[in-house]
Every structure is written in C-alpha cells, then in structure tokens.
C-alpha cells in the first residue's frame, strides 16, 4: 500500500492563521495519539503573530536518514520518510540536529524519534492527512497539482531548498508568490541577527 502519486502536499504559510487546528488534529491520530507531530511556529514573535505550520518535507535525500547511525529511519517507496523504526532507534538525537527543517522530535519517554509521516495510515488508503483535512484557511492543502493551481492563481509550488551548500528537493511543496523570482535565504546568515533587518523580512511576507 502506498500513497497515491497524484496527490501532493502544499504548505502555504501566508494563509496560516495560527488557529492550532492542525496541532489538535495531529494529536488525534491513532498512531501517535496525544502527541502532535506538526509544529506551529511563530516566524518572529516580537514583531508579528504570523505563524507557520511545519510538517515533514519528505526530502529526496533525507538528511535525517543519512545521519542515522542505527539505520532506523526509512523511506517507503512512495517517498514518505517514516518515523524511526522502534527496534532500531537508539534515541541519539542525530536526526533532530541534522534536519534542515527541524522536523524530527525526540520522544524521550519512548526512546524514539517521532516525526510527521504524512499520516501514512490515512494517505496510504487515499485519505487526506489529518492536518490538511482540518485546516480552515487552506494553509495546509493535500490534493492534485491542478487543484492547487485553480485555488491559488497567484502562487506557485516550490520544492527545492538551499541550505548552505546543500540543495534539498522535497516531496512536500511550499507555496510562494508566482510573479516573483524564487529567492533562497542563506539560513545560517539569517539566524545571525546582525545580518538581516527583521522588519524588512516581514515586509516581504506581507507584500502579497
């Protein structure tokens, strides 16, 4: 059983209203009940209440699996990177530190890394992931590419990201403005407060 290939995940951070529905829905899932695998992050809390939902991007060459010393993180044939295998995971936190998107979570009470697996129990039988099925503003959308083109005429999906010298291609798409060129932010430099003007960063977000 594998997730149907015509359906894709589209994350549109611009539309996120920070309602926490996805977080609540995620912790309803039977495979990890009570533990939300989605992160709802503030972009820059002192400046804005803008939030961003962070789900696993399911990289083509998953860094978390690359750094796993226990060979515990596996990807199924539909390109979905799964939670660490319980018999193998040694709870070493390598994946947590290595993931460029900051997705894996170490559940110390289970001695296991748990992460978003695109609701594999649901998507593998053709249902939408929990978060995408509840998102009221469409920030999380699971559907076909044609569907999203109709729904978001001013946005385009991007699935290539640059982290320093590492280029990452992902299964999950991020929606960005269509008419603007795709810009890659130097994440390491952006983390250094002197290097960026925080207000300027937010202005870019609000323009469209």
């Amino acid at each position, binding site marked *: 059983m594998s997730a149907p290939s015509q359906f*894709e995940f589209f994350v549109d951070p611009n539309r996120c209203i920070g309602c926490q529905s996805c977080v609540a829905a995620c912790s309803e899932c039977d495979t990890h009940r009570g533990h939300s695998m989605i992160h709802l992050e503030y972009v820059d809390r002192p400046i804005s209440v803008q939030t961003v939902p962070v789900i696993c991007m399911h990289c083509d060459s998953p860094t978390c699996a690359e750094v796993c010393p226990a060979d515990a993180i596996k990807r199924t*044939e539909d390109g979905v990177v799964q939670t660490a295998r319980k018999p193998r995971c040694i709870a070493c936190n390598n994946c947590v530190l290595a993931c460029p998107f900051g997705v894996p979570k170490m559940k110390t009470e289970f001695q296991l890394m748990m992460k978003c697996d695109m609701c594999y129990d649901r998507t593998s039988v053709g249902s939408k992931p929990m978060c995408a099925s509840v998102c009221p503003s469409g920030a999380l959308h699971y559907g076909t590419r044609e569907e999203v083109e109709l729904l978001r005429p001013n946005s385009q999906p991007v699935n290539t990201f640059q982290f320093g010298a*590492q280029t990452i291609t992902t299964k999950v798409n991020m929606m960005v403005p269509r008419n603007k060129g795709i810009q890659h932010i130097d994440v390491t430099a952006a983390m250094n407060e002197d290097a960026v003007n925080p207000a300027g960063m937010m202005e870019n977000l609000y323009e469209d």
Partner: protein
Amino acid sequence: MNDTKKPSPLGRDSGLSPQSSVLTTPDGRPYHDQPQWRNDFPIDWPQDELVARRDFTKFLVLTSLAFVVGQAWIFVENVRRKRRAVPPVRKIARLADVPVGAAVTFAYPEPHDDCLLVRIAEDRFVAYGQKCTHLSCAVTPRLAENCLFCPCHHGVFDLATGVPTAGPPRRPLPRVVLEIRDGTIYAKGVEVRT
C-alpha cells in the same frame, strides 16, 4: 510530481521494483558509484528489506564453512594435546624452605604459567595453577579461611581440592602433580580439570 519519474538509479540488475526509483544520493552521483555501505544500509524501505538470493546463499555457505573450520580446529587441537610431550619434572623448592602455612610461587610447565605451592600441613602439599578459571586473575592463598581467593570478582576456591566454592568461577583450578624426593619438591605434571 511523480509523472516525471526518474529512471531507477540502481540499474536493471539490482532486482528492485521500479517504484523504488525515488532514491537520490546526497552528492547526486549515480547509485553504482556510491560506496558499498550505501548499498548495505539503504535508506529506502524496499531495498532495506530486500535479501537477494545470492547474498543469502553466500551467507549460508560462509557460515557453514566457518562451522566446518571450527570443528576441524577442535579436532586438530585435540590431536595436538594428546601428542604434546610429557611436561618435564622440575624442581620447585626444598622442603626446608617451605614452612607449614607458607606459599611459594613458581612457573610450570611454561615460564608464563604461574603456579602456587602451599604447604597446608607437615606432610601435605598442594599446588595449583594461579590463574582464576573465571577471567585469569591471580588467586591468592588465604590459609586462615582455608581457601584461595581471587580479588578480581571475589572468587573462592577450596584450598585442599582447588574446587570453586563461591563467586563467579565454575571450574576447578588446574592441579600440579607433585613429587617429594630427597627433601625436594618436584612438579611432574598438570592436571586440567573441568
């Protein structure tokens, strides 16, 4: 996105289904240019669960070969042990040099085989290999408690027989066969017991 499926990076002879073609490597080089460990520890689930018939046969043959070699080695060792020359008779000490209750160390039959001679009574001598049968620490005599004591893991051997009485050791100490002739103590053999 999957309508633009890449060709299988593993090639035709990998025996893998074409669905597992999502695999890309961090440096972007084709899969057959990657080091062997990437093939041994694949990230993708289907490859991870794949056991090729050839690999399984190789494992089976090598494992049974190792068993055969092991059996042959045991046989050869048995033959060698039987053919080994009778250990030489070697002088340990003069009777007058060992008072009752004293212990003397000596090496027998090889220079590294430390042994312990204890005179437990006027006319009773015992000698054992000094290596504890647990993890080869040197045992020390405790005449007051009538035992040989291993300080490493608190193993205790009976002084009169060399049989373990407490602690981790399970086998008795090898006994050195003694002979007393003309007021001199000689070692004339080692009796390995199980």
